[in-house]
């Protein structure tokens, strides 16, 4: 059970460099995957696991809450998964930009402006990250 959960976590961290001793198709995949380690991890884990490689909602919630709590202007007592950045946490729109960028860094994402402009609350942030296939 633990091993199955460990497998994708380990695979995520493997980096392969293409080697001439590999057969052609694998070398091509490895070459492509060397620059995209996550893609290789998913390619290897796909036949075996269901959604192990993806984050659980609980993990997303915890990590997003931590990001909010680390922002200097946030009122810690008000932080909860339903909070609105400006209405509940006392942030302004510039702070919201900072928060969304901190979330990008936490989950290794880049959020385009038109999507980022819509994220103004914890529920929206959590939903965006949970639905993002590349969130790590």
């Amino acid at each position: 059970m633990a091993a199955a959960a460990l497998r994708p976590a380990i695979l995520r961290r493997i980096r392969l460099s293409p080697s001439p001793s590999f057969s052609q198709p694998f070398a091509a995949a490895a070459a492509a995957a060397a620059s995209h380690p996550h893609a290789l991890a998913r390619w290897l884990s796909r036949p075996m696991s269901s959604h192990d490689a993806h984050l659980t909602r609980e993990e997303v919630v915890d990590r997003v809450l931590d990001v909010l709590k680390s922002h200097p202007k946030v009122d810690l007592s008000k932080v909860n998964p339903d909070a609105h950045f400006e209405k509940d946490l006392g942030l302004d729109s510039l702070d919201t930009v900072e928060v969304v960028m901190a979330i990008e860094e936490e989950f290794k994402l880049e959020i385009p402006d038109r999507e980022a402009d819509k994220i103004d609350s914890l529920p929206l942030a959590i939903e965006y990250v949970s639905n993002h296939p590349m969130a790590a």
Partner: protein
Amino acid sequence: MASRTKLSGIQRQVLSLYRGFLRTARLKAPEERRRIETVVSAEFHENARNVDHRNFVYIEYLLRRGKRQLEQLKNPDITGLSTLEVNK
């Protein structure tokens, strides 16, 4: 889906510029990044506090100036920025 009141065009431009500065700061060395973030955050917040939100002419001037400064900052040869305080 958006729970916020719709941002005006000019608000979106300001936030986009702010985001641009923060993204560019990420690419610099950690200490410089922190300094850029401090300076930029202070300046944007100060202007948000002091400038009349209806003063479109001035806001657009600030946006143009900010975009020029951002372009300069993006130059990889530029290692950071600093401000001068003038005693009036």
